[in-house]
């Protein structure tokens, strides 16, 4: 292979991924004078961000003037079971309002309050109505706004281009290799910095809300390049995915249905969530149906338990189904039909109406939906510096779902879209600052490019091998049954053992046909990242011997104090296996600790947190 003959691009900053985080990062890097390029596996504007429905959380205070960054910060920490990185939760709560207003300035058209301001809706775990939204298609609004803005900024877009691996010059980043999906031709990017914005790895599970793109490419590339991953045991199961028909099992049903007043019922018609209120949230959650019905009009009434955090609701649904009180297709009922007028439902939840009507032949203005948990989101990811988003590998940055830290053990709904904007922008400026400080342009060490391409083309070139699609299905069944919503040490150990075997088989799959737009080949390549990601999740899940947030261990019930003091950090060992370290959590500034643990009354009365600085 003659490397000099391979198509080569040179840029200051390469962003991998064109969802909300990637686009916002590219916009920022470009605004700071960097020659910036974006590579994305799909066409521009098709990234998984379009699937986000409910909204983006920001304490604008439009819908309820009592809201502010401190309450958003407190909600985020409580939702994450205090395993979040303090600084990231602080930056997020403080910067989200500015990022939302900026999106409006770039053309986003949010739903409005009666005063003409950006409207905000209620969501699980958020004290006040906080989610700026556009019906139930907020993600589409976000990605189109960023896309239409970005294409006029002079950023280079490489569409339908898949990154294969990172290049290094000594310890630091020197670029990345990839291939064009259309032609199968190989391509090299020589860049001074790389920003990963590749999302999660939900496609390792059978029941997931994620699209084919979610194969953990960023996790695997970072891991192979020596970067640290963190909190990988925390995988969020969204409580409400579709359960029927089988072909759409897992497709997301927005939390906005509950935010707009929908309730969860079991087969006996009971609002079962009242039986699953955790102690930590009891003081702020309605105890009876009668009290929940008075909320939010009666300021004395507390929030209904359907709006508890996702980990709690998902486990409750699983328990109801397990105890025989499920719906006909193995879920529970989500009812908004009997609670809101039909035209209101169609206006506020148009794509849910459409989705159920077309795919399940259910009219959600007349009938309840059937829903159940679906793998939705990775709280964990690349371990980054909170202010610059740089990993331990100089020049390698990560943002959005691909990065760890903001969400801790469980993410609040609505905190993802704001995460993309806040930390996308910080990653862009972090990368620009890094590049400005570089003395010389890094040069990839010899041999790396050849090794990456040899591996990628081996699936095409070999004589025979297993079918990559069927091996992928095997992986999905394995993760679904052994690394699910409820875990045991025995099953996790079994999963890790079987994953070793699967990893070997994945290296030897065969892609038939030519390299031109060949999904079988693409599948063979992404299967490798997926298996790597799955192994890291299983190992981290085995190591954390407690139940916290989205990680539930039947053999280690409840939160354990000693585990609340550490995050699990994973690195690639010399043998290629994940090496796991317990890393003590940094002590936060006093004011953050006080705000996070304050009662809501003390916080709102200013008895706590009054001296906290409002600037970042």
């Amino acid at each position, binding site marked *: 292979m003659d490397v000099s003959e391979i198509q080569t691009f040179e840029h200051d900053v390469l962003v991998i991924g064109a969802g909300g985080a990637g686009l916002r990062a590219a916009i920022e890097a470009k605004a700071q004078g960097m020659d910036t390029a974006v590579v994305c596996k799909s066409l521009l504007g098709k990234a998984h961000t379009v699937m986000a429905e409910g909204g983006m959380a920001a304490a604008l205070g439009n819908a309820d003037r009592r809201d502010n960054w401190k309450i958003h910060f407190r909600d985020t920490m409580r939702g994450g079971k205090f395993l979040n990185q303090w600084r990231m939760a602080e930056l997020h709560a403080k910067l989200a309002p500015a990022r939302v207003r900026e999106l409006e300035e770039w053309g986003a058209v949010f739903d*409005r309050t009666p005063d003409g301001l950006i409207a905000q809706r209620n969501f699980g775990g958020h004290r006040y109505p906080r989610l700026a939204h556009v019906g139930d298609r907020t993600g589409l*609004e976000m990605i189109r706004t960023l896309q239409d803005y970005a*294409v006029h900024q002079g950023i280079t877009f490489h569409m339908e281009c898949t990154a294969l691996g990172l290049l290094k010059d000594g310890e630091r980043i020197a670029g990345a290799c990839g291939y064009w999906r259309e032609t199968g031709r190989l391509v090299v990017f020589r860049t001074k910095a790389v920003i990963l914005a590749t999302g999660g790895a939900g496609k390792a599970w059978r029941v997931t809300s994620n699209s084919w793109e979610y194969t953990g490419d960023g996790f695997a590339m970072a891991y192979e390049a020596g970067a640290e991953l963190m909190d990988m045991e925390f995988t969020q199961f969204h409580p409400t995915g579709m359960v029927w028909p089988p072909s759409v099992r897992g497709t997301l049903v927005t939390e906005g249905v509950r935010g707009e007043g929908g309730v969860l019922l079991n087969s006996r018609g009971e609002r079962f969530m009242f039986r699953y209120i955790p102690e930590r949230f009891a003081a702020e959650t309605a105890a009876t149906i009668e009290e929940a019905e008075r909320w939010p009009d009666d300021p004395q009434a507390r929030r209904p338990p359907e709006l508890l955090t996702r980990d709690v609701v998902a486990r409750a649904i699983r328990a109801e189904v397990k105890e025989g009180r499920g719906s006909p297709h193995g879920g529970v009922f989500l009812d908004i039909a009997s609670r809101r007028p039909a035209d209101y439902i169609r206006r506020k939840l148009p794509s849910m109406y459409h989705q159920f009507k077309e795919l399940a032949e259910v009219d959600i203005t007349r009938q309840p939906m059937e829903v159940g948990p679906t793998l939705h989101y990775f709280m964990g990811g690349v371990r980054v510096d909170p202010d610059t988003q740089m990993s331990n590998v100089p020049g390698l940055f990560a943002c959005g779902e691909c990065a760890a830290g903001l969400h801790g053990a469980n993410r609040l709904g609505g905190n993802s879209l704001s995460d993309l904007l806040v930390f996308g922008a910080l990653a862009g400026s972090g990368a620009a600052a890094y590049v400005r400080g570089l003395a010389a342009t890094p040069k990839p060490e010899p041999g790396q490019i050849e090794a990456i391409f040899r591996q990628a083309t081996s699936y095409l070139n070999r004589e025979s091998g297993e079918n990559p699609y069927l091996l992928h299905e095997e992986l999905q069944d394995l993760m679904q049954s052994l690394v699910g919503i409820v875990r045991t040490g025995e099953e996790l150990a079994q999963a890790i053992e079987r994953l070793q075997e699967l990893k070997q088989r994945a290296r030897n799959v065969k892609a038939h046909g030519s390299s031109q737009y*060949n*999904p079988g080949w693409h599948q063979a390549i992404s299967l490798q990242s997926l298996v790597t990601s799955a192994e890291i999740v299983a190992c981290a899940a085995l190591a954390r011997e407690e139940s916290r947030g989205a990680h539930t261990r039947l053999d280690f019930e409840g939160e354990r104090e000693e585990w609340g003091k550490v995050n699990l950090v994973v690195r690639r060992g010399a043998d290629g296996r994940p090496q796991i370290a317990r890393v003590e959590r940094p002590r936060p500034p006093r004011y953050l600790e006080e705000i996070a643990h304050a009662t809501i009354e003390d916080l709102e009365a200013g008895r706590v947190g009054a001296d906290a600085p409002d600037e970042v």
Partner: protein
Amino acid sequence: MGGERTLRIWRGDASGGQFVSYRTPVEEGMVVLDAILRIQAEQANDLAVRWNCKAGKCGSCSMEIEGRPRLACMTRLNLYPPEAAITVQPLKAFPVIKDLVTDVSWNYEQNRRIPPFQPGARDPDGQYRMAQCDVDRVQEFRKCIECFLCQDVCHILRDRERKDAFVGPRFMVRLASLEMHPLDVADRLPLIKEAFGVGLCNITRCCTEVCPEHIQITDNAIIPLKERVVDRYYDPIQRLLGWLRGRRGGTARKLPMSQGPASAPA
């Protein structure tokens, strides 16, 4: 449902191709995309097809199913008689890359030609204010998922091959979303009239019929744009006022909108 079904799928590339029949097991509730992906996994690993969200939200899996432009993820198999084969082929208005995948890059080029959103000043308190009733129409346009089915079915692009003169329904919708945005202050009407070719649309409403988001493309986007062009360039009173103001045309974007069909030049 249950049992098996036959799909006739076009296989080939820019140099040519043919329909290949595949029989595949099906179950209740399946959509055409499910059947295609099953065939891909079990019988034809290299069958090229674009898809992402599988829920009608991203607009990737556009193709022609039984001769009609559709999203494969929102087209249920039980829409068609159980015994007959279902014919699936790539979008006709765009060049084939391979199998069901076409080169839609022309659309991205058109989008880049459109002058971007240009907001006016914020209110003194730093806020932008817009009434919900003033953004309802714009929100309808912004539902667009860029599936390009409207572009595929548009006679001007598909049959008359006038990609040089008309940006197509998708970008008329995009232009309308900008022109009717309450905060936008840019003037794109001269471009809409000339370079973007609004006059070429002859209002057959085919685009509206295939829109999976049910956007009223013709009535709510294209016709009002035609009317704005007529008001500015062909209304004698407006032209006189414009001349008196010392510029061509007036503040056209402030004109009231009528909902009726326009007598625009075809």
